[in-house]
């Protein structure tokens, strides 16, 4: 049996009219309308559009809540395998509507959704939340967009694993996916370099990320009363690595009790880190986690006291998202234990 699809389009693509008809409320129609034809042609019977929802762009913008409720109610009733909106090309309000309604259907009903639009359409801001196929900036791009969207839609309905964005035709959505290029990396690099030298367009395979920032913590004028916490990404663990922290891309962190330790010794401690020569840290773990001098400072009254536990993981090849999760967890633990300042060491 063919997969069943509900398609969302605006008044213009339904041939109702242009700007003067943008106020029409959402309306449910049987079968395909307008651009839906191109999808069905590409699906060759594997999927059909059972219903088309037509909605004016102004209506959606001005009655977003009602429009969403109505569309979701219809889609729920029809119970299709997939919901497709647009493509909207460079029509701003249409793109906004497509992205929003697709996201709503995905969140409310959990079925796969897809839309398409020009990369500069404001709706494209949703590309990390829903799959959006990049299109040309005018409806003339339908001929190219339809087969790409149709193929991607079919893949989603079949539950197949999603390929890389450039393979399956969606805008990069912050999830890196491996795939095989036709040419090896060195050849691609030389080609990219020649384009760059000659002032021709080139596309980087990895756009540089923007790291977020956090406000610096307030200064602590008097450290002599402070409970000091300690954390490290240098992988210092109890001898034998009882928590089995991985040498690379660690899946967890360890919490280690230093009560009674005046310094870390090579008999009691070691590093689990796989990214640097472990000899020095294993010989003297204080070189990474300086318990020896901190104990002296505790005695001297330079600091109040050390928190009873330190937190350790391996930074080597460990995903930033995992590190964040570990730190969020032990930051809470430190907070509850009354820690007021923290030294983090990295290798």
């Amino acid at each position, binding site marked *: 049996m063919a997969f069943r699809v509900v398609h969302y389009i605006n008044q213009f693509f339904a041939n109702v009219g242009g700007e003067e008809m943008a106020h029409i409320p959402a309306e449910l129609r049987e079968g395909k309308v307008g651009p839906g034809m191109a999808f069905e042609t590409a699906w060759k019977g594997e999927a059909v559009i059972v219903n088309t929802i037509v909605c004016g762009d102004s209506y959606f913008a001005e009655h977003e809540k009602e429009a969403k409720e109505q569309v979701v109610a219809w889609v729920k009733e029809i119970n299709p395998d997939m919901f497709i909106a647009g493509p909207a090309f460079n029509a701003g309000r249409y793109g906004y509507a497509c992205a929003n309604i697709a996201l709503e259907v995905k969140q409310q009903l959990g079925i796969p959704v897809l839309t398409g639009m020009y990369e500069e359409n404001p709706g494209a801001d949703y590309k990390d939340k829903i799959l959006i196929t990049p299109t040309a900036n005018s409806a003339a791009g339908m001929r190219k967009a339809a087969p790409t969207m149709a193929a991607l839609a079919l893949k989603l309905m079949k539950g197949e694993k999603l390929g890389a964005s450039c393979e399956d035709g969606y805008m990069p959505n912050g999830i890196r996916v491996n795939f095989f290029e036709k040419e090896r990396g060195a050849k*691609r690099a*030389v080609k990219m370099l020649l384009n760059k030298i000659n002032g021709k367009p080139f596309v980087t395979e990895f756009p*540089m990320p923007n790291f977020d920032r956090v406000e610096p913590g307030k200064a602590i004028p008097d450290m002599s009363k402070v409970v000091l916490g300690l954390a490290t990404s240098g992988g210092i663990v109890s001898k034998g690595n009882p928590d089995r922290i991985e040498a690379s891309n660690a899946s967890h962190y360890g919490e280690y009790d230093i009560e009674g330790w005046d310094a870390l010794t090579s008999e009691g401690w070691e590093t689990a880190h796989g990214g640097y020569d472990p000899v020095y840290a294993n010989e003297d773990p204080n070189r990474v986690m300086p318990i020896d001098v901190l104990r002296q400072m505790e005695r001297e009254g330079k600091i109040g006291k050390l928190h009873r536990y330190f937190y350790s993981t391996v930074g080597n090849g460990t995903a930033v998202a995992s590190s964040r999760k570990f730190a969020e967890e032990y930051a809470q633990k430190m907070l509850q234990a009354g820690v007021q300042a923290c030294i983090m060491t990295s290798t």
Partner: protein
Amino acid sequence: MKLELGFIKINDVQFSNECAVKDGILYVNPEDVKAFIYDNDDVKTYIKSITLDIAKPGESVRITPVKDVIEPRCKVAGPGGMFPGVISKVDTVGSGRTHVLKGAAIVTAGKIVGFQEGIIDMSGEGAKYTPFSKTLNLVMVAEPVEGTKQHDYERAVRFAGLRCATFVGALGKDVEPDEVKTFETYGIMEGAKLFPDLPRVGYVHMLQTQGLLHDTYVYGVDAKRIVSTLLYPTETMDGAILSGNCVSACDKNTTYHHLNNPVVAELFEQHGKTLNYVCNIITNENVYLADKQRGSDWSAKLAKLLDLDAVIVSEEGFGNPDADLIMNCVKQEKQGIKTVLITDEYAGCDGKSQSLADSDPLADAVVTAGNANMEVVLPPMDKVIGMLDYVDYCSGGHAGSLRPDGSIEAELQIITGATNEMGFNCMSAR
């Protein structure tokens, strides 16, 4: 400097009573090879036993823990010999003629040294990711003498592997190659005169030098003690640079990669047509910040001195070397030299994480060899060369990676050469 490479196509490797290359078949007598390998003090002192085995493409064979892969080559004419400063005496290589046993490789394996040895599967899912599932592999498994320190063991295995490759490579000395290719780069003035209108391009080749077990050797010198310097590209084809490192298996440059550096090959492909390939600048990835600054300062300075218009920069490893990569990029770009970087990514198993440890907007042209954190499941193999004892401990492995049925669930990191940052493979990510 001009070098001729004579490629002798190897279609099969067999154990035999003799050692020879005949009609495209490499015949090896294991006892002769072992005798040659053992004629070395380090090997004698630290290696208890050596076992040789053969692994061919398509076989149900797993090799692990893999340390290095080396292509058998032999200097036929011109100064010096293979692996100068280590196996041969120090002499500038890269000119004359060298024979290559194309299609064959020496793989060294044995008890783990660090955390970072890898896996080569000759068939199945894992074979897709490693280039060494397509080579005819003579595998050398070296057992250390009990109580051998890891650094001594690493050095002894390195020497043993290079000696094995040297012995096998020499079998091609008097064989007529199937194909001869010539590679030549020119002096500064000469090149400028020959190609006045072509952009001058260099290759900034970053070498892993993180510590005793993460090193690269250049003419026998531990590369963490070099300042950035120049190399004719053809020098790399004669073994001027070799791997002694245990970076994660996926993005360590094995000696095979150095001998067959794909950036060198692709730049030669365009040399004299669309660009003038001037030279390689080698620079290291040390653990001191001052060294990182000095290394990238010098590579930028040398590029300027040579009036380069553009460079390709290849990284080795990941993490703090990402800082070297970005410094090498930014310093070149700021003096008007255009860059393309080759790296790989550590974006987490779900692909959602930050891929590199450092970044800069000037790094606007990057080629990626893929996400090394991607999970793979490698089916059990009928035969294991080496030992499975260390799978859980290798980078990319985790507790329980090795399943009871012999299959392995791990990250791509664990596969030798999977995300090579010289751009040896087709894999990428978006």
